[in-house]
């Protein structure tokens, strides 16, 4: 199964993946809802469609964050290491980065759910 994923991701960018997904999801949800309500008809008429759309991008975002977490978990050695990984070695740098990425992914996962939660309860532009 691990063959599906890149063998080794060794870049600082992986660290940012999850928070970037969180930011994009936040912008899409809030800007989308604002435009939908302020310009009736531009993005459709039925508020439920907007809620479904937010639901879909939420599932997509959670999936991407999940993959990022999985890669980070692998980089961290599936939890076999013993933090804080603060030796000045290449190995510790890798493990530290994996661990930090995993934690950031967890935070982003929860944040994306919290961002989407209003769409579960709010049923109209004015409600």
């Amino acid at each position, binding site marked *: 199964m691990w063959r599906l994923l890149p063998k080794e991701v060794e870049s600082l960018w992986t660290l940012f993946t999850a928070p970037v997904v969180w930011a994009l999801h936040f912008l899409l949800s809030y800007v989308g809802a604002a435009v939908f309500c302020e310009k009736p008809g531009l993005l459709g008429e039925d508020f439920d469609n907007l809620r479904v759309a937010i639901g879909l991008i939420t599932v997509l975002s959670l999936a991407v964050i999940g993959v990022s977490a999985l890669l980070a978990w692998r980089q961290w050695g599936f939890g076999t290491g013993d933090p804080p990984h603060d030796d000045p070695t290449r190995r510790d740098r890798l493990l530290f980065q994996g661990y930090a990425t995993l934690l950031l992914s*967890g935070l982003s996962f*929860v944040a994306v*759910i*919290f961002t989407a*939660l*209003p769409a*579960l*309860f*709010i*049923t*109209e532009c*004015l*409600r």
Partner: protein
Amino acid sequence: MTREIFISGEHQRRDGDAEPAPRRSSGAVRVGVPLSAVPLIVSCNGIQSALDPAGEEARQVATLFWVMTVGGLAIWAGVIALALYASRWKRGAITTEAAGRLIVWGGVVFPVTVLTALLAYALWLMPSLRPFGDQTQAGLRVEIVGSQFWWRVVYHRPDGSSIVSANEVRLPLGRRVEFSLTSSDMIHSFWIPALGGKMDLIPGRTNRLSLQPTKSGTYRGQCAEFCGRSHALMAFPVVVMQPGDFESWLAARASASPGVVESRSAETLFLRHGCGDCHRVDGTQARGTSGPDLSHVGSRLTIGASLMTNDAETMARFIAHSQSLKPGSLMPTYLDMPSADLDAISAWLKGLQ
């Protein structure tokens, strides 16, 4: 907030005057007015408190507040207890695994669960806080326009007629009322803590707010967005009346006050001093709209947007000294007006019931 509980008894008044009158010479007035407002603003119960609800929306807001407060206190108590346990009663090392489990459960799972529950509860309340009726079958609609430092209040009745007033809001008990809120100059915020949450008045935009009073009495609303030098003095009494009383009160305001014809000479003075350029008085030539409608100003509980109680003397004081009473207000001062004119105009205005 706590200090206040021990001092003034002023916040207990509910049906009386909305505001104690600062009866001081004009030198002391500048200090006296803001200070006299302090007990009203900071009390926990009384005419201007979100924790002493008199409306459906305010009740939900108060419940939310208590749920959040009790929840927060419970967590705080738990954390302190844990800290005491660790530092006093059970000193000694625990295994790395136990520490890890504590962090995962106490530092991740627990807060995420609690925050999710509290957030979901608050969001779940939101739709019922904005229960707008069907546009076509709306009952009373009250239009509020904020201006430095006063409120235009227009009652739109279901039959299409409208009645203009200012600086005071009257509402029928138990009825749902929809407010449409806008501003003529800068951002203000309309807030009647006893009845519900606040909503901004934004120039070029109309916001909606829906309130349902559940207890009759006199409350106090306040501008809640800084809007200039006299922002703190931009308030208004809110009177919740029995629906029948409200209807007859409103009906009486649909035509000119009988007081208009009491003194034709005062009316002439009012017009000659140019008051009619900014103020409207039904039944006279005064048609100005840049100041509050004065057609029935004598029957308001307060003068100057909840600044002072309303009688002929405070009326005269406001007209002569508006700038020292309300710095930056757009009402000019009339320090040089002959006192005979001032008294005649004030008495006439007070008579506009």
